[in-house]
């Protein structure tokens, strides 16, 4: 189920560098909320703070009104906060199906089950199939990640996330390194999954962001400089200065 997700005044410093400086944002259930900003704006640091990979210095993370700040990553997953990674990090020696099943078994609390065969966990198998079906990978479920194309691998990350039945799914640059058609596929997918989970999306592709987001937060140098619906953000002169213009010139 999609949940309401709130970040309040989050701070994270590394020595004198304020990587994340007083960031607040608010995601309503079932919304796609995008986080954009140039490299070094603090997006990934924010992600890591929210998902328990870094300890924020100050601020709060609330899921459906419950304070989940400072919970370790694996507990956050149980609470419903699930992330994907910027660099594809699926388990290479497992097939796509096994990758997703691992997540499904984890959600069902079978991680410490020593007394049955992993391959005999029927419910996890069905859940994994459903996730693979949703992202359109079911036909390739028997392949190992190295046999999948780059786009499919990114989609597999999303399937793993979905199998954990998140309330909010944090996607870290899901279209990184993708072709135009693959990017469109991911965009459609993100829109499509928003009816089962809220989405916080870090993304560089401004076209994607403007087309699929309900709300956008723009960061530079650790701070939020603008927040609002896409039409407002695309017109914001400060944003155009700091980010949108710069990207068109310097896009790689």
């Amino acid at each position: 189920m999609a949940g309401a997700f709130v970040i309040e005044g989050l701070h994270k410093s590394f020595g004198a560098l304020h990587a994340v400086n007083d960031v607040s944002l608010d995601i309503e259930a079932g919304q796609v909320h995008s986080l954009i900003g140039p490299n070094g704006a603090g997006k990934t640091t924010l992600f890591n703070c929210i998902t328990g990979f870094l300890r924020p210095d100050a601020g709060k993370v609330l899921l459906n009104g419950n304070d989940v700040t400072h919970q370790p990553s694996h507990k956050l997953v149980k609470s419903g906060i699930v992330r994907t990674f910027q660099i594809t990090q699926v388990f290479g020696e497992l097939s796509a199906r096994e990758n997703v099943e691992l997540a499904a078994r984890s959600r069902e609390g079978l991680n410490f089950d020593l007394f049955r065969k992993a391959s005999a966990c029927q419910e996890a198998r069905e859940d994994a199939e459903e996730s693979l079906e949703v992202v359109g990978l079911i036909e390739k479920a028997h392949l190992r990640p190295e046999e999948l194309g780059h786009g499919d691998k990114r989609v597999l990350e999303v399937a793993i996330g979905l199998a954990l039945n998140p309330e909010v799914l944090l996607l870290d640059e899901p279209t990184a390194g993708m072709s135009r058609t693959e990017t469109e596929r991911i965009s459609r997918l993100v829109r499509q999954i928003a009816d089962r989970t809220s989405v916080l999306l870090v993304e560089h592709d401004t076209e994607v962001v403007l087309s699929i987001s309900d709300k956008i937060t723009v960061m530079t140098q650790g701070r939020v400089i603008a927040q609002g619906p896409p039409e407002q953000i695309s017109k914001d002169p400060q944003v155009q200065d700091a980010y949108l213009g710069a990207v068109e010139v310097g896009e790689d």
Partner: protein
Amino acid sequence: MAASPDVENRVEDITRVRSREIATRVLLAGFALLILAVPFLGASPFFITLLTEALIFGIWAMSLDLLVGYTGLVSFGHAASFGFATYAAGIFAMNVSADFFLSTMVAILTAAAVAFFTGLVVTRLSGIAFAILTLCICQVLFQISVVWRSFTGGLDGLIGVPLPTLFGREVEPGEEFYLLTAATLIICYLLLRRVVESPFGKTLLAIRANEDRAAAIGIDVRRHKLVILILSWMTGGVAGTLFVFLKAGANPMSLYWIESGNILAITILGGIGTLFGPIIGAIGFIFIRDQVTTMYRAWQFSFGLAFVLAVLFMPSGIAGIAERIWRRLWPARS
């Protein structure tokens, strides 16, 4: 590459994989029968004793495979699990009861307790730090066994551990004890096979591949490391119990770092992540050591050289090579 999946091919693929699985099972069952049959094939008492030691090392190496092969935790102090159990079981057998089940229970439960407290510290770590800290903990146990003379017998160790009893009957050294060891090995193998194929076992693979990624799918990495460390020590404890009865005594050298190195080399040479490979590695090690030590004194040099060459040229160990041949005999992909 991601070719469009051909359903017919896939069905054929699955049946072939299944037939290979069945063939593997038949092979393993044959190996188990062969091991159990050795005393009835006219093997010499010397050979039987040597093979007993090899199978004990096999159990011990399997226990290390749980850490190194399945979880990616390289322990340089795995003599701790084995050596600790030789003392625990030995002292219990000398003072309370030589019942094999009871002694084994005492050894594995105390080993589990030590593993738990060790684990509270070492599960924070991985890689080199884990290796070094396990080495240190093992050396501490070694020092204790040397210094605490009234309890451990110091450098002399425990002397005069009685023969084990099974259902109130003494187990004769030689063939009977060999059969007890072989049966224990087979039971350990089957239990551990279950563990590595369970949902828990699969989470270990995830931890080995990438701890952060494992945490991000809701796996409590530290607790899983703790559980597998305890299971590994318990299995090592079973091996230590058999060893103390085989030798009728315990010695601090079982806790020495060289033993940790030997068992690590055995496990890697045999083939990590296979459970079966380390058994083969242990049999090879014990028999080669026996042959080579009587021929010349620098045998450890030749063992070291063989180890380096093996790591360079067959990183997946003996089991890896065997598996490749096996897969060629039962090809899965057309």
